[in-house]
């Protein structure tokens, strides 16, 4: 099989299980984001792919070849570290040429490749600068160029943007995604920033407590979260209890929701519904009745907090479709059934 497969990977540190039976297939040329809160095992998983940690159990297979215990230096992967790990004693050019130099490439070969890569990362002519004289964004690019110098089989990045300020981070995300598409290289990025994952990835892998909670395309993850953890971690959401009443209708907060169906044999479940999917109308007509408790007008969006049966529900609208309500008003809450995702328990 072409691509990377992780089969039942487990990593234990003493009594602590950092990664728990992770299985994942990454087709060639895919951009994967490992996403999760800190301590979820995503960095450990990446380090195992790189060979910097050895799995306690399971196998790592790349293009049909088992590389589980191959030493790091024989894997030919490119990696960008959280600290960037640029060699302080070398210039920009020598940093980028490092992997070529230790393989005995000639000076000319090195220079040609360095110039090529500097052009790719929009820093032509920087070869002779000392690393210490670069800005944060420039260091970031040099680290990327260095990792790509040998056209690696896999491109791994561990929280690569964490040192950049918010604006720069956003533009680097776009740039990195474009670079990856241009080169067609299989890429795995570890991040805790869901916006970053949504911007760049073909495949988002949400991890929690050492396990994969869901692996799917970004929109799929957002629209169809597998469980409450994923729904809550990706964007903001309303998590509501749903139960079947005596007539078999799905009921939320004491009101039957027309069109919403629970899977067979299930009496109780949770649903996730995104704030932008909730409509606020006048009370009645089968809508859930609630009281507006707070309105947050952010300019670009308006968030309305509504309390119903002791539960706070958030609805988001653009200013154009802003509901005409004030704090204290009674409103009807409409949950479009096609937007309600019934979550796994």
């Amino acid at each position, binding site marked *: 099989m072409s691509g990377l497969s992780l089969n039942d990977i487990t990593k234990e540190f003493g009594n602590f299980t950092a990664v728990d039976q992770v299985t994942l297939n990454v087709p060639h040329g895919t951009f994967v984001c490992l996403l999760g809160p800190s301590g979820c095992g995503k960095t450990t998983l990446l380090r195992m792919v790189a060979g910097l940690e050895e799995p306690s159990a399971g196998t790592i297979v790349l293009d049909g070849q088992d590389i589980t215990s191959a030493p790091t230096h024989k894997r030919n992967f490119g990696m960008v570290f959280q600290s960037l790990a640029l060699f302080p004693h070398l210039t920009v050019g020598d940093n980028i040429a490092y992997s070529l130099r230790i*393989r005995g490439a000639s000076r000319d070969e090195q220079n040609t490749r360095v110039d090529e890569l500097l052009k790719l990362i929009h820093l032509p002519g920087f070869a002779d600068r000392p690393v210490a004289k670069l800005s944060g964004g420039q260091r970031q690019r040099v680290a990327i160029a260095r990792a790509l110098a040998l056209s690696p089989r896999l491109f791994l990045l561990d929280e690569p943007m964490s040192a950049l300020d918010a604006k720069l981070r956003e533009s680097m995300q776009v740039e990195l995604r474009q670079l990856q598409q241009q080169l067609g290289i299989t890429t795995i990025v570890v991040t805790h920033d869901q916006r970053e994952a949504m911007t760049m990835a073909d495949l988002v892998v949400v991890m929690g407590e050492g396990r994969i909670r869901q692996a799917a395309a970004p929109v799929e993850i957002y629209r169809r979260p597998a469980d409450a953890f994923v729904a809550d971690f990706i964007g903001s959401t309303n998590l509501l209890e749903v139960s079947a009443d005596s007539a078999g209708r799905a009921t939320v907060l004491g009101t039957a929701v027309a069109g919403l169906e629970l899977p067979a044999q299930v009496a109780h479940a949770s649903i996730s519904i995104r704030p932008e999917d909730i409509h606020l109308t006048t009370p009645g007509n089968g809508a859930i009745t609630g009281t507006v408790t707070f309105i947050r007008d952010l300019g670009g969006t308006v968030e309305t907090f509504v309390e119903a049966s002791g539960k706070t529900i958030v609805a988001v609208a653009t200013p154009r479709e802003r509901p005409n309500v004030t704090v204290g008003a009674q409103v009807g809450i409409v949950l479009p059934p096609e937007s309600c995702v019934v979550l796994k328990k």
Partner: protein
Amino acid sequence: MIEKFLRRLYFIAVALFLAAPLIVVLGVSVNERQDLAFPPKGFSLAWYAQIFTDEGWRNALFASVVLALTAAALAVAIALPLAWFLWRRHAPWAHIFQLLGVAPFILPPVITALGLLTFWATTGFYGQPWTAAISHAIFFVTLPLVTLSLGFASIDRSLVEAASTMGADDRTVAKTVVLPLILPYLVSGYAFAFVLSLNEYIVAYMTVGFTMETLPIKIFNALRYGYTPTMASVTVFFVLIAAIVFGLIARFGDIRRLLGAMSSDGK
């Protein structure tokens, strides 16, 4: 105002206390005749030339320099793999060797000297010149061990990981990343050991004192038979060597960091 004045006065007093004996020796060393006189009578650099022209002094200088060069090299050869191992591997028990490396420097020197004297006498090598080199290497191994441990601790471990993802094996990492980064610490460790070995008296005296004269031994022997101005010129020579070596370390490295200041404090 008064406080500033007092502070300056205090600095001057300490500086004067530290410099006074050396200034007097400097003055004495340029006396024209073989007098112990200050202020000097006349001016002559003859006593400096004597270090190199007089056979006894020249031999002592040569012996000292050779001893210091080899002892410092040996001390670094012991300290480097030890410090590297302690940094590279997780082996708490190996710290016992670190303790052994520091012990000779903390204990009163006469103890190490006496231990080595009994050892060389028992094994029958007493008086051989090379025993002094080994003795000094053990006595001063602390210095490169401390500077190198500091050096290794300052290396960001992700640099090593980065190198290995780019295809470098352990040996290549050591050569292309670790060594260049600890080189300043290695050089300082060597320089510290060199200068202190050059000045060391009691260990050298107890191990090879009866067969070989290093400069400090020669000065002390000369001192017992009275004064010769060459003692003064040699002293000035020694101070200059020390000042030049430490000056170079300060120029090319961060001496404040080596002596325990944090690297990040901006002043």
